[in-house]
C-alpha cells in the first residue's frame, strides 16, 4: 500500500490580502522616499543674501510650493524654509541679482503673500527683473 503525503494547498490570496500586500509595499516605498526628502529638508543657510517673510504657509507640503517657485528664479543658489518663522532664506550665485518685485511674484505664484523682503546683501538687489 502506498501512502503519499500531499502538501496542503495554500489558500488563495483573497482580494483583501492582495490589497493589504500591495498597500504595504507602496507604503514602504513611499516612506523611503519621504525619508530621503526629509533628510534634504534640514539644510539651513547660515549667511543668507535675502530673507522673505511669507504669510499663509502652515504645513511642510505647502512650503514646497514656494521652494519650487523661488528656485526657478535665475541666480538662486540655495534656499531654506523656516516654517515656524514663516521665513524663506535665499543664497544667490556669485554675481547674480534679483529684484524685490520678482521675488514677490514668485511667492504669489505659489499662492502665498510676501509680507516683507529684506536684502541682507544689497549687492544681489536689482531694480527690476533679474540681472547677472
Amino acid at each position, binding site marked *: 500500500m502506498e501512502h503519499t503525503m500531499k502538501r496542503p494547498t495554500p489558500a488563495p490570496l483573497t482580494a483583501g490580502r492582495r490589497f493589504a500586500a500591495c498597500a504595504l509595499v507602496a507604503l514602504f516605498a513611499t516612506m523611503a522616499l519621504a525619508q530621503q526628502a*526629509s533628510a534634504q529638508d534640514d539644510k539651513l543657510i547660515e549667511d543668507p543674501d535675502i530673507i522673505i517673510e511669507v*504669510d499663509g504657509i502652515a504645513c*511642510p507640503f505647502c512650503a514646497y*510650493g514656494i521652494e519650487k517657485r523661488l528656485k526657478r528664479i535665475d541666480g538662486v543658489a540655495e534656499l531654506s524654509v523656516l516654517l515656524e518663522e514663516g521665513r524663506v532664506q535665499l543664497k544667490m550665485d556669485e554675481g547674480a541679482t534679483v529684484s524685490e518685485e520678482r521675488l514677490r511674484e514668485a511667492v504669489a505664484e505659489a*499662492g502665498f503673500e510676501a509680507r516683507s523682503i529684506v536684502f541682507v546683501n544689497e549687492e544681489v538687489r536689482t531694480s527690476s527683473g533679474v540681472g547677472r
Partner: protein
Amino acid sequence: MTCQAHCGKKVLLFLQGIGPGPLPHAAAFVLLAIIAASPARAQITTNTALPVSAGEGIIRVQSKLIRSTGDPSEMDRELRVLAFPLVGVYGVTPKLTLFGVVPVLDKNLEVTTPQGRVTRKTSGLADVRLFARYTVYQFNRRGQTARLAPFAGVELPTGTNDATDGWGLLPPPLQLGSGSWDPFAGVVFTRQTFAWQIDVSASYKFSTEADDFQFGDEVRLDVATKVRLLPRRLSSGLPSFLYGNLETNVIWQDQNEMGGAVDVNSGGTTWYIAPGIQYATRRVILEAAVQVPVVQDLNGSALENNFIITLSSRFSI
C-alpha cells in the same frame, strides 16, 4: 460546461434581478461618491482649498477597499470593491487649479441563487472626473491661512456600461461607468494653522440619463479636521508633521430611474465617520483612514456598507 448552461431561466432571471435591485444601486452610489472625493490637494476623504503653485503639479495614488455584507435576505449578497483612483492636479494660476481623477475599479458581487453561490465581477477603467477650482477669498497671516474656493466639473462616461458576463449584461451598478455625462459643482472652505486644519466642502452632482437608466442626483457634505500630533514643538527648518485626522461625510442620493420608473430600492442617506492618520513631509504625504458608517438610511432593502479602508500617498512634482 459553463454554469450558465447548467442553470435554468429562473436563475438567470434571479441574477438579472440583482441588477436593478437594492444592493448594487445604493452601493454603487456610495462608491462613486467616495471615489469622487479624492482630489490630490485634500485631506483623506475631503477636498480642500489650499493652493497649488502655478505651473506645478501633484500626483495622488489611492487604494480603497470597500466591503458590504450582512444581507438579511436569502440572497446573502456580498459586495467587495477595490478602487484605485489616480489623481493629477495642476496649478494653472495660484487661484485656478485643474483636477483629474482616473479610477480603476475591481467589483465583485457574490449572491446565493437556487443553484448555489454565484459571482459576478468586473474590473477596469471607471468614469473619469475632470474639474476646476478657483480661489475667491484668501486670508493669510504668519503660520495660518483661510481660503474659500468654488469648484465645478464633469464626470465623463469613460467606464464601460455594457459589460457582460456569463449571465448576460451586468446590471448598471455593477458596470464600471454610468454611460452619462454628469456635471457637478460645489464649494470648499479651508482654515489651516500650524496646529490644526479644518476643511468643509459641500457639493451637488446632477446625474443624467444614459441607455434608459439614470442614477439619482447626489448631495454631499464633508467636514475634515486634523491636529498636529508630532512634532509637539516646531523645530527650526522644515520638519515633517504627523497629523491625527477625524473626518465625516454625509452623502444623500436621490432614487434611480429606469425606463422612466423610480427604483424604490435605491438612494438614501449615509453618514460616515473616518478616523485617520497623515504623515506630511515637504514632498510626500502618506495617509490612511477607515470610514465607518454611523447612519445608513437607505431606501428599500439596500445592502449597507461595512467599512471603507483608504490608503494613499501624494507626491509634489
